[in-house]
């Protein structure tokens, strides 16, 4: 139970950085992003539909990612999100913060970097 709660807390703070990391290399649409998060976190981090899109829109509002609608023949149109320059900077900062935080956590609580 303890670990579950720690993960929940971490999820809130980390959701944004995770999404930024997912779209860092390649533009992805919402479903792809949710699948990739599930995949990369081994299922420990999942978004509900609403929270995923709320986060996406929030990131887009801040100018950290940018959505682009793509229409292909015979397919439903989809919005592909890609990271912006501002987003890259934020991601870099957050990565550093997170590593420092995890390192500190490791020293104090004996948590090892995965």
């Amino acid at each position: 139970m303890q670990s579950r709660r720690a993960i929940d807390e971490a999820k809130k703070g980390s959701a944004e950085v995770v999404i930024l990391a997912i779209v860092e290399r390649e533009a992805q649409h919402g479903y792809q992003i949710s699948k990739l998060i599930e995949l990369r976190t081994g299922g420990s981090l999942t978004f509900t539909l609403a929270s995923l899109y709320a986060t996406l829109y929030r990131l887009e509002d801040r100018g950290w990612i940018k959505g682009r609608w793509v229409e292909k023949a015979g397919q439903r149109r989809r919005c592909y999100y890609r990271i912006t320059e501002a987003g890259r900077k934020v991601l870099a900062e957050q990565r550093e913060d997170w590593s420092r935080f995890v390192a500190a956590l490791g020293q104090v609580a004996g948590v090892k970097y995965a």
Partner: protein
Amino acid sequence: MESQRNWKALVVRQAQATGAGDLPRHTIDELAAHLEDIYADALKAGRTEADAYRAAEAALLESAAALPTVPRPRTRRPDARPPQEIAAGGRITGIGGDLRFAWRQWKRSPSFAAVAILTLGLGAGAATAIFSIVDTVLLRPLPFREPDRLVTIWETNAEKGLPRERLSPVNFMDYRATQSAFSDAAAWWRPEINLAEPRLEPIRVSTIETSANLFDLLGVSTQLGPGFPQQGPFNSRDLIAVISDRLWRQRYSADPSVIGKPIEVNNGSYTIAGVMPPRFNFPDDVDLWLRLSWDYTLHSRGAHFTEAVARLQPGITVEQAARELEQVSARLAGQAPSTNGGWIARPIPLLDDMLGYYRPALIVLLAAVGLVLLTACLNVAGLLLARATARAREMAVRAALGASRARLVRQMLLESLLLAGAGTAAGAVAAIALLKGAIALLPASVPRLAQTTVDVRLLVFALAVVASTALVFGLVPALVTASARASEALKDSTRTSTGVRGHRISRVLVVAEVALACAVLVASALLVRSVTRMMNAPTGIIADGVVTATLQLENAKYPAWANVEQFYALMLEAVRRQPGIEAAGLSTAIVLQPGWRIPVAVDGRPAPRPEEAPIVQHVSVSSGYFETFRVRLLDGRLLQDSDTATAEPVIVVNETLAKRLFPGESTVGKRLISTAQQIGPLGRNLMFTSREVQSVPFRIVGVVSDVHQAPIGQAAEPVLYHSQRQFPFRAMTVVARGQDTATVVTGIRQALRGIDSAVALSNVRTMEERLITATAAPRLLTGVLVTFAVLTGLLAAIGVYGLLAWTVNERRRELAIRLALGAQPLAVARLVAVHGLALTAGGILLGLGGAQLAGGLLQDVLFQTRTTDVLAMSGAAALLIGAAVLACIAPARRAARVAPVEGMREC
């Protein structure tokens, strides 16, 4: 394609079910696509269609509660328009969308927006226009050197009820010598002057003959030519003149070589020594300044006809100068009691004096327009507050759906800004239009009025007041609402703290509005009373069909007084012969104009002490004068053509003189001893057969009813009327009566052409026009104030209506319960009406009190009217109550018609 619709429909249905309302299209698209992907993946993983559908549905249901948190207002494709939403940090973005929303809000209630914008615009516009006029006319220093040290000097005589008379030139020389008070003083008088030059039309020009130090004293130089010699003599036989810029341009085509050329005026040839700068108009609209050519000390102390301006010594106040002048006056009264008893000279700051009636009038206007602006602001504040409270529920719903407080406040801010912007634009337009109108309407005699332009600083100030009102009262409720607990507001908006607080503020606003409107209404009602009294003040004449015009004979052409008398006798005869003229006469002073005030003695009575000698106005009239104005003959006979210089010296007196000098006696047949041998260069009493004769007794042949020979408002004075043939003047006013005034004017012109076409006829006006002009300023002030009063009254009525309408809306539930429990609709209506009327009554009481406090300000512009005038106060109160009753009707009816069930349902 079928599944597409299904997924979208599912999302839309779910969004509505959870209260998220209409999601943006692209959000629906994205969510639908997401669900479709889940469904497709599930199918690929080998699940059944029904199973796959359930998986997608579950994903949606899982997050249904959070759907409203998905940011909403994007309606276009995100790549076409970058998403703009307010970030958690409060960055202001998305103004465009909010502005559009605000615009839609106002469009939804156009009457509310129109009333608010109109109110703000008119308030700010009127305030700016009046402030600008007051600033230019009242507050800006005069264009003279150290204008604060300039005073005018007038003589007053409390015993005779004369508050402001011109000076005797002899007295003036004594005042001027008071060097402890004045560094210098200049004096002038106003001769009637025609310009008659070869090859140019003879014209009448407004002229003063002034001591040579006038321009020095004011600190103003000519724009062309040397002007009067500096440090030159006070008066000189060397005749020189200075002309105005206007005369120079109009008559001499701005020819610079005019300097040094002669200018022919009726009493000689002057040399033009200078042209004054444009806009220089002192003492008023004068075109010709002649240097004084005679010695002031050689005149009479009893003849008051000079005006004076003096420069105070540095450091001397007006009060100190007044004390000095009082001492001089007292000394003169001791030395020459017959002429100077009771007379006191008073200095008045030049600007105050130039403004005269307009100063208190403008201050009253300023106060009134301030109240109008304030009422306008209160009104808009009340409207916004009511609206905000009405929207509390909307705000609460939006807050519950995830709109942040900053977001709501920003929305309200934008709505207020839009209103303020429109209001200020309307205000700027109104200011320019109203100022133009005011300048056109105000009499040209208001000094410096023409120079008034919309003062940008004042406009900015007024607009700032308006804008901040709109902002503050638009925003405060938003802040209050936003901070109130949303759930509370959702439960019942009428019970929230906002509602209660809003009501209390609104009530205060309405009471204040009514109070202000009441004050302005009382002020305008008082002025209406005052002006009515003024218009109805007895003049002693019947002005119907009478035309007046002034004539001036030139000294050179009519050097002998016998010629002058002859000219007028012939002229009168010719006028009477003209068709359409029923009666005609001449006078030196017609109604509202005072005659020459000179002491007289009663023949056969012991000579009174000089200071007790009665002062009597002397007027010279021709035969036919009284008949023309239909003045009643009370006893004896009127003056006749046969009362010539060779006949017996006779006079006619007015009723006041008869009552004062001969109470209980028969007046006709008595004799008054006159010492008025000559009135300066203006007129000569031919009955003084030689210079050595000191006094002549004149037999009273008739008594006429009083003609008011003084400005409106002053008491009746004793007047004696000489025969023009015995006491001729070069300048006379011709009066003639006929059915058609145009025919009369033509007749006078025709007659004059037959006798001497070189004589200019000026000031041709009907007597009615003259009387109307005499009350022009107070009537104008009244007109403007009444407009303001109607405006504020209307605003107050709107305020009362707004409050009641809102209250009824808010209290629907309570009213419905009352009705359901058996209350009579009439009783419910009465409940609402009483509420409105109670507020109005409170406001009226406050307003009446306020008007009394401002009474001092008003008293200066009132004529025989007290600020406690019951009729004015009750009239104002009645008007307001009437307006309030009208304002109550609709809300009261609505209250009575609340359907019990409908009201109950609302809870």
